[in-house]
C-alpha cells in the first residue's frame, strides 16, 4: 500500500509545486517508487518544474474519463529511477475531477507505488478538497507571513473535518509543517515571523525550514527540482526534510543569519 501525501497550503504562491517536486524527487532518490500527481487542473505547473512539459500526452482527467490508462499517462523522470509524474489537464477545470475517479486512480497507483504525492491547487474549494481527501499525511507549506499562516490554519481545519480519515473517524491525517522562503536575517529584523511564531500558531510538528534562495527560482525555470542542487541551502534543506519524512532525526539548519564579516559591515552590505 502506498502512502498518500498531500502538499497543500490554502494560499497560492507559497511553494507547493516546488515542494512537491523536491520532496517527490527526494523520496525517489532514497529508493522509493514515487509518483507526483498534479491536482491543479487548468493551471498545470508541475510538468514545468519537473522539466517534462514536452512529454505530456495524456493527463489525469483522461485517466479519470477512461480515455487513457495509467501507463500511457505517467511520465517517467529522466534523472531519477522510480520517479513518475501524472500531469494535470490544462484545457479543463476542477469540475473535471470526480471523487470516484480520483479514488479509482489512487487505488490503482497504490498497487505499484510506495509514495503518492498530491500537489494541491491553492484555495479551499473542490480542487484542494479532492487533493487532500484521500491523504494519509499532509505537508502544509507555509511562508513566514501572517496571511499564509492563517490560510494554512484554515486548511488544517479542513484536513481535520473534510478528509476521508476525518469523515470515517479513523486515525487523523498526520500533519507536517514546512516553512518555505525563510529569511533569518529578516526574522532578526522583525520583518518576518520566526519559526517559533509559526509553530506557536499552527501547533503541528515541523518537517523542515527551506531558506529563501535564488536557487529555487533558477531551478524552477530550468525544470530541475532544487533538491538536485546539493550545493545550495534550499537543496540541502529539502534533503533534510525528506529524511525526517522517512523517520530519521535530523537537526535543523539555516535558522540563523550568517554572521557578517568585518568588510561587509564596513561597507554596510
Amino acid at each position, binding site marked *: 500500500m502506498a502512502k498518500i501525501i498531500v502538499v497543500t497550503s490554502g494560499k497560492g504562491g507559497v511553494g507547493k509545486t516546488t515542494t512537491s517536486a523536491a520532496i517527490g524527487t527526494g523520496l525517489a532518490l532514497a529508493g522509493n517508487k514515487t509518483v507526483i500527481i498534479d491536482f491543479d487542473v487548468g493551471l498545470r505547473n508541475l510538468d514545468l518544474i519537473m522539466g517534462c512539459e514536452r512529454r505530456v500526452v495524456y493527463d489525469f482527467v483522461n485517466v479519470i474519463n477512461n480515455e487513457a490508462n495509467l501507463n500511457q499517462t505517467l511520465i517517467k523522470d529522466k534523472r531519477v529511477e522510480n520517479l513518475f509524474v501524472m500531469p494535470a489537464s490544462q484545457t479543463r477545470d476542477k469540475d473535471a475531477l470526480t471523487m470516484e475517479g480520483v479514488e479509482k486512480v489512487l487505488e490503482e497507483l497504490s498497487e505499484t507505488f510506495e509514495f503518492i504525492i498530491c500537489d494541491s491547487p491553492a484555495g*479551499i474549494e473542490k480542487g484542494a478538497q479532492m487533493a487532500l481527501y484521500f491523504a494519509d499525511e499532509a505537508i502544509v507549506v507555509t511562508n513566514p507571513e501572517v496571511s499564509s499562516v492563517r*490560510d494554512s*490554519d484554515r486548511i*488544517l*481545519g*479542513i484536513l*481535520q*473535518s473534510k478528509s476521508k480519515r476525518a469523515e470515517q473517524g479513523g486515525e487523523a491525517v498526520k500533519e507536517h509543517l514546512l516553512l518555505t522562503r525563510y529569511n533569518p536575517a529578516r526574522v532578526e529584523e522583525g520583518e518576518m515571523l520566526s519559526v517559533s511564531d509559526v509553530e506557536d500558531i499552527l*501547533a503541528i510538528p515541523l518537517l523542515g525550514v527551506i531558506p529563501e534562495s535564488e536557487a529555487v527560482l533558477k531551478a524552477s525555470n530550468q525544470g530541475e527540482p532544487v533538491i538536485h542542487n546539493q550545493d545550495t541551502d534550499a537543496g540541502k534543506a529539502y534533503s533534510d526534510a525528506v529524511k525526517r519524512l522517512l523517520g530519521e532525526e535530523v537537526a535543523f539548519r539555516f535558522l540563523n543569519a550568517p554572521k557578517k564579516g568585518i568588510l561587509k559591515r564596513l561597507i554596510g552590505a
Partner: protein
Amino acid sequence: MNNNDFQLKGSVITTFILEFSDYHATEFEQFLTSKVQSAPDFFSHSPVIINLEKLDLNMIRVDYLELISICRRHGLQPVAFKQSPNLDSSDVETTGLAILNQRTCGKNQRPGAASEKPAPARTAQIITKPVRSGQQVYAEGRDLIITGSVSGGAEVLADGNIHIYGTLRGRALAGVSGNLDARIFCSSNEAELVSIGGHFLLSDSLETQTWKHPAQFYLQDETLHVSPL
C-alpha cells in the same frame, strides 16, 4: 400484604392560596361573603392554603381557629398554613393543619421536584484540538472548555462560560442566549472580538494591559470588563 395496595406518589394539585397582608376577622368575613356570592359553585369545597408570609405576626394577632372556621362557613376547606420558616409555628400547629414553609414549598424549589431525582448537571463541552481559522464551535446550553488555542478567524460560542487554556486569537462569545453572568477566561489574550450576552469589545480596545497575558472577561453594569488573571 400486596405491595400495590399502598403507593406513595408525588403530585401537583392546583389550589387557592389566601394571602394576607393584614387581618381583621370582620373584614375578612365580608370579603369572603362577596367572593363566594359572585361564584358559589366555584369555591364550594375548594381546598385552600392560607399564606401568612406577608403578615407581620409580631404586630398582628391572628386567631387561627377563628380564621379556619370563617373559611369553612363559606365552603372553603383550609388544608395548610404557609409561613416564614424562621417564625415560631407552635400556635399554628395547634390547629391541626399542615404547615408549609420555604423548606418544603418555597420559591427556590422547582415545581414537582419532590418527586423527581435532581437532573444531572450538564457537563461542559470539551475540545482538545486547536480550533482552526474558519471553524466554529458552539456549546449549546452549557460551558465550553478548549485545551488548545483558538486561531485568528475561528469563532467559539457558548450559552455558558468559555475557558481557553491556549491562546485566544479569534472570536469568543459567551452567554449567547442572554446569560449576562457568563465569563470568558483565556491563558493569553490576543482576541479579535470578545462578547458576553451581546456586549462586545474589539481587539482595538482589548490591546491594553492584559494583551498577550492571561485574562478574564465579564459584564458589570452593562459594560464588558477585562481583568488580568
